[in-house]
């Protein structure tokens, strides 16, 4: 009975820690204007959300070959929450001359 208390507290602390960490996640904005990603290179961490703001009248994508793709409609936004750490190059599948880079820390 007495031993139950600390275990309970520990579980509570763990639960709190798990809930608390996403609160630190940031939203990072990348602007697309005239077929250019700005900033072209982003440093983020797992849990952060990248929001692409497309000012062009053209649809774009943010695509990582063989992994993920975000559609970014004309004069609109596309977003994605980063789920894994690592450095990736992404590009627009419609206009492969548009390139960006993400450095995702754990």
């Amino acid at each position, binding site marked *: 009975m007495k031993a139950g208390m600390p275990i309970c507290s520990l579980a509570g602390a763990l639960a709190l820690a798990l809930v608390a960490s996403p609160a630190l996640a940031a939203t990072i904005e990348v602007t697309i204007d005239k*077929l250019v990603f700005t900033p072209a290179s982003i440093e983020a961490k797992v849990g952060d959300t990248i929001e692409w703001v497309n000012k062009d*009248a053209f*649809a774009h994508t943010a695509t990582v070959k063989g992994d993920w793709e975000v559609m970014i409609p*004309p004069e609109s936004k596309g977003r994605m929450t980063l789920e894994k750490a690592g450095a990736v190059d992404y590009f627009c599948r*419609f*206009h*492969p001359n548009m390139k960006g880079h993400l450095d995702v820390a754990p």
Partner: protein
Amino acid sequence: MSIKHTASLAALVALLLVSATPFAQAADKPTDPQIAHIAYTAGVIDVEAAKLAIEKSKTKEVVDFANDMVRDHEAVNVQALDLVKKLKVTPEDNATSQALSKAAEEERAKLAKLEGAAFDKAYVANEVAYHKQVNGALETLLIPSAENAELKSLLETGLKIFQGHQQHAEHVAGMLK
């Protein structure tokens, strides 16, 4: 007279080095109304070719690519029309636009006779070649000749779009092999 002649000759030589075809006829520096007409025509041509591909092709990658071409070129041309309206410029038909349209008509007639994989290959190969040709003309003739800053800026965006399409077309061509 002689300055104009020299300039025309230089433009002609530059064009012949870049590409042999419709743009070679534009020896004289085009005016803004002519440039607007050429750029618009170039877009319409690609939309028409794409519509043929959407109708004929059974290959997803080719149809997707063609849909991308329709969407982008129609969007560019809406911007072009908005701009000429704002600038009160009336696009002016000219020998380059006419030569472009004529070449495109011949190409479409050729493509219309092909089916299946032969069509896909020929359409995508022509898309690579056509975008390359238009990019060359934008870089060496149309952008440098444009007087109006907004027109120049739209052409520069158009060039980036076209360069993107060229890479996209090259990618699709690679997948068809």
